[in-house]
């Protein structure tokens, strides 16, 4: 037992040739967000507070596809979505189609705590944000030059881009388009020393997505799930994650087949989600951590009470 925390900044075909100026800021952000989360856990904050806090950090960071730095729709706008879930009560909150809310994850939390509903979208969600007085910013705040460029490339390539970290310099190096990737989601899962679990996920979605497109992130049981056994946050190709009900299945395998967290998480990623489509971070009530992915890489970090920490991108090297 003991506390544990894991977070991700997206799974996908992250090329090993990723240049330092694209790699280092992300690693630094993962490390920083991990520190924020660990400090909060040590200070006795609830896992629900911790995951919200960490995801807010990642949303504010312009290098991940959430909040500022969100990828753009085919109209050149941002439409952000997020979801939070408390393991003990299975209470949850989700939002989609946000355009001015600085921290989507915090609005998702307010949906959970201040309404009898679970999920608000688009104009209704924006109106709720204003009612609640959360911080809103003009849409242009979220748009980065990098993402304008990515959208341009995706349109030129006339397809939806699955790996937002890789500029499409050569067509043959570009990953195959499968139309529904959700690379670059951010997420965090945490458990405290008493076994209380929580999860949070946030994203801008898919580059060049149709306006109104919703991915796996705000769908309970797909991109986000927590109960008394584990907490899960997934990332990758939205459609694949929805079809495989990734979040729920990790927990279901633990509950119904008695698998351990690692076994369940590995099984779902390796057997239930098609190759190169998904990754996840998960923690169990007993303080286990799992961060499997079937893509080339996944930006991730974790720490446990016994002092283990890890910050990594690919599967054969760590850079803590």
């Amino acid at each position, binding site marked *: 037992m003991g506390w544990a925390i894991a977070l991700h900044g997206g799974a996908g075909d992250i090329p090993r040739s990723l240049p330092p100026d694209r790699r280092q800021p992300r690693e630094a952000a993962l490390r920083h967000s991990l520190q924020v989360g660990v400090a909060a856990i040590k200070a006795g904050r609830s896992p629900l507070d911790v995951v919200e806090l960490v995801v807010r950090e990642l949303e504010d960071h312009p290098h991940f596809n959430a909040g500022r730095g969100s990828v753009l729709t085919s109209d050149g706008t941002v439409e952000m979505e997020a979801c939070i879930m408390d393991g003990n009560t299975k209470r949850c909150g989700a939002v989609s189609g946000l355009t001015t809310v600085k921290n989507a994850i915090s609005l998702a939390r307010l949906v959970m705590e201040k309404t009898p509903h679970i999920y608000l*979208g688009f104009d209704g969600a924006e109106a709720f944000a204003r009612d609640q007085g959360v911080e809103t910013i003009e849409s242009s705040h979220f748009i980065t030059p990098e993402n304008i460029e990515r959208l341009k490339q995706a349109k030129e390539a006339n397809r939806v881009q699955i790996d937002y970290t890789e500029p499409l310099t050569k067509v043959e190096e570009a990953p195959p388009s499968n139309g*529904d990737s959700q690379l670059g989601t951010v997420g965090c899962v945490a458990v405290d020393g008493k076994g209380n679990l929580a999860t949070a996920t946030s994203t801008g979605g898919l580059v060049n997505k149709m306006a109104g497109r919703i991915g796996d992130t705000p*769908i309970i049981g797909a991109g986000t799930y927590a109960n008394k056994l584990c907490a899960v946050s997934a990332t990758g190709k939205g459609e694949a994650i929805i079809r495989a009900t990734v979040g729920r299945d990790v927990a279901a395998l633990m509950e119904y087949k008695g698998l351990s967290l690692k076994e369940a998480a590995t099984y779902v990623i390796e057997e239930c989600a098609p190759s190169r489509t998904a990754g996840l971070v998960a923690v169990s009530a007993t303080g286990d951590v799992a961060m499997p992915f079937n893509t080339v890489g996944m930006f991730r970090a974790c720490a446990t009470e016994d002092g283990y920490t890890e910050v990594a991108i690919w599967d054969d090297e760590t850079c803590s």
Partner: protein
Amino acid sequence: MGGWAIAVHGGAGVDPNLPKERQEGAKRLLTRCLDLGISALRSSLLPIDVVELVIRELESDPLFNSGRGSALTAEGAAEMEASIMDGVGRRCGAVSGVTTVKNPISLARLVMDKSPHSYLAFSGAEDFAKQQGVELVDNDYFITEDNLGMLKLAKEANSIIFDYRIPLTGSDSCGAAADSPPLKMNGLPISVYAPETVGCVVVDGEGRCAAGTSTGGLMNKMSGRIGDSPLIGSGTYACDVCAVSCTGEGEAIIRGTLARDVAAVMEYKGMGLQEAVDFVIERRLDGGGQAGLIAVSSKGEVACGFNSVGMFRGCANEDGFMEVGIWDQ
């Protein structure tokens, strides 16, 4: 065993004092939809096509809460959502926030078949509908006098919406005694509550399953509120062992990932269909949540279960079994 089977529902949570003629009207509609589905199955239509066909019929009839006859938002408009899933390949499509699309279930199908995505909502969904040339109507088409009246009652009943967190102290009998607390669902007294959805599940003789769900959502809801019906794994799910469509208190269905869990206990615990349905209804609706569901298995079985007061439903299979009901089994 191993033939086709079909089930339809028109929502869980029924006013025990619903006038007889309304009950009869509902049963006639359910029967008509079953017959439509059965006829389609006999013509060898694929389960996904049968599901869409039957739900279109339910959406077009103003009796239940979907398409025409949808429950209304706080502003008095219809804002609809639907999802459909093909057990073959677990392909899926969903829409939310549609206001001019005559048949939301068909738009959900087009999202699945004709877009690179799984779920489209609000103006993005409406734009896609226009591109696809589906039949569009004014929002008025969906609004019935009945529902305008219900909306007014819901506002008066002060459906402030925090009420539904109070667990039902109630009654597991069909009637509410005068001195027991009023039956409620989603915070509304049952006389005002509009059952939330319609759905259909189908399996053909080859064991292929499909499911679909469609709704106008919660009466007096905030515009922008999304419920369980368009959420794969919650309101709708289909895979190679079964197909499920749920109805009832959305939050409870989402938290319980009800539709997925029926399949999960079949797959991971080896339960049969009815056992899985009973398990999920008994154990996955914690916190007093009320809901119901219909399901078919790849073996040709059909089952339903609900812990609410009543669920409009009908089931049939190739062996000649056919049943339409509202109250407890």
